[in-house]
């Protein structure tokens, strides 16, 4: 009887691992800074004497019906491709609601919700891939046409992973919403083709992520600390070579206080066959550094699927 249960359990495990799927990136459509600036949806503030402009998405969503139509069309078409998108307007509303709830939430003993400054800073509407959209209306005499630009930007590597851009046929009579709908229909297939290429590359060569190593100033060691004739920085690079897909990564910056690894290709699944991401990958590095002979206490922080930071010397 025990044997049968054991066999059944192993079969279940095999089936589970076999059907394990890679972590699906989230995608969100946002208007570009250029579009927001052209249409007057910017906020301006004084940053220590320098005037800084940032897009006011909330205002844009509340006031521009064309923007809503375009986002709604793109969301619908992407959902049809099995890729429902995160709706930016809803994400902004959820953030506001959550902030209000956190401010009001207290325990029976009077304790409030713990929130560090970094937690507050991280509270932004985010997605793994941003579909950044720009359109301009071209007018030649009575004729109107739309130049439409859709860019797929990886939120972590800052790379443009998909694109579709072009100008529609000029029209004498068509209204702007009709021209915009036509632009979306014309360009979304091309955008999805390039996005699919990006996903195929990811399945073939691993997910591309960014890893940062930093140190707390309270720690007496640094990345030049010697371990058996090797500096800590070299030890970390050695670990990266051994654990990345085909040893692919670039050390973009390295000092005694920090290291920046870009174009790090990590496997989509860990050794047990479970889907993994930047955090899962860096957890292994964290354990490696915590174990002897290094015995370095460290803190792991993550941002979405593709960015992780390890801060050495404390929790």
């Amino acid at each position, binding site marked *: 009887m025990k044997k049968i249960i054991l066999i059944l359990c192993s079969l279940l495990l095999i089936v589970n691992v076999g059907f394990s799927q890679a972590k699906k990136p989230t995608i969100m459509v946002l208007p570009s800074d250029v579009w927001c600036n052209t249409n007057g949806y910017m906020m301006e503030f004084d940053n220590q004497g320098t005037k800084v402009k940032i897009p006011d998405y909330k205002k844009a969503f509340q006031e521009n019906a064309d923007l809503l139509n375009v986002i709604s069309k793109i969301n619908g078409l992407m959902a049809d491709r*099995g890729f429902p998108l995160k709706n930016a307007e809803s994400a902004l509303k959820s953030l506001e609601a959550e902030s209000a709830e956190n401010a009001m939430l207290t325990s029976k003993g009077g304790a409030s919700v713990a929130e560090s400054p970094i937690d507050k800073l991280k509270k932004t509407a985010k997605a793994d891939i941003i579909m950044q959209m720009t359109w301009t209306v071209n007018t030649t005499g009575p004729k109107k046409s739309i130049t439409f630009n859709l860019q797929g930007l990886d939120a972590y590597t800052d790379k443009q992973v998909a694109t579709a851009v072009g100008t529609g046929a000029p029209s004498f009579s068509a209204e702007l919403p009709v021209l915009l709908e036509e632009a979306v229909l014309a360009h979304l297939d091309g955008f999805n083709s390039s996005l699919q290429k990006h996903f195929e590359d990811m399945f073939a060569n691993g997910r591309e992520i960014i890893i940062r190593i930093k140190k707390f100033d309270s720690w007496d060691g640094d990345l030049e600390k010697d371990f058996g004739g090797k500096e800590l920085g070299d030890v970390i690079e050695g670990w990266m070579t051994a654990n990345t897909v085909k040893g692919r990564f670039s050390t973009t910056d390295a000092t005694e206080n920090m290291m920046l690894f870009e174009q790090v290709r990590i496997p989509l699944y860990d050794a047990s066959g479970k889907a993994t991401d930047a955090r899962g990958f860096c957890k292994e590095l964290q354990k490696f550094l915590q174990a002897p002979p290094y015995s370095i206490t460290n803190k792991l922080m993550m941002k979405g699927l593709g960015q992780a930071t390890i801060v050495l010397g404390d929790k």
Partner: protein
Amino acid sequence: MKKTTKLLMVAVAVLFATVYSTSAFAQAGKKADKDTKLWRYEVQCVGVGNEGTKLIKVFSYSKKADVAIEQAKKNAVHAMIFQGFNGNSGSGCPTQKPLTDNPALEQEKADFFDAFFADGGKYMKFVSVSGDGQVAAEDRMKVGKEYKVGVVVSVLYDLLRKDLEAAGIVKGLSSGF
């Protein structure tokens, strides 16, 4: 008796003529099929179609203009899967990539595509001739001994893609996740 023999001869002649013309039509059809396999057709985008469709003009070659018109449907679906088409700024069409970027797919999945592109095959579900198949005078050209005929067709692109994804011929955007 003479009258009966004459009648018999006429009947045999009609039969021969019918068989000959049918076989000539079939031969022309086979030749057109071969041309499709050799990608001997040209595709132009005519305009942005309705949601889920692509509106294209396909130029096909055949000794018989009727065969070329019928073959245009097959060529249109073939083009969507294997060739794509170039953009056309005048009609607002962006360049369309094919559904597969594997040029050997047709050979690798020969069993599937032979049945798919057979006369009356499944490809018919995904294409319709626009404007009752009327061909503009400038789109019917005699090139050497054959005709080059341009027909505007509407391809149900989204349905075609979904069907090929379901059959495991091409990968979907979300496959693997």
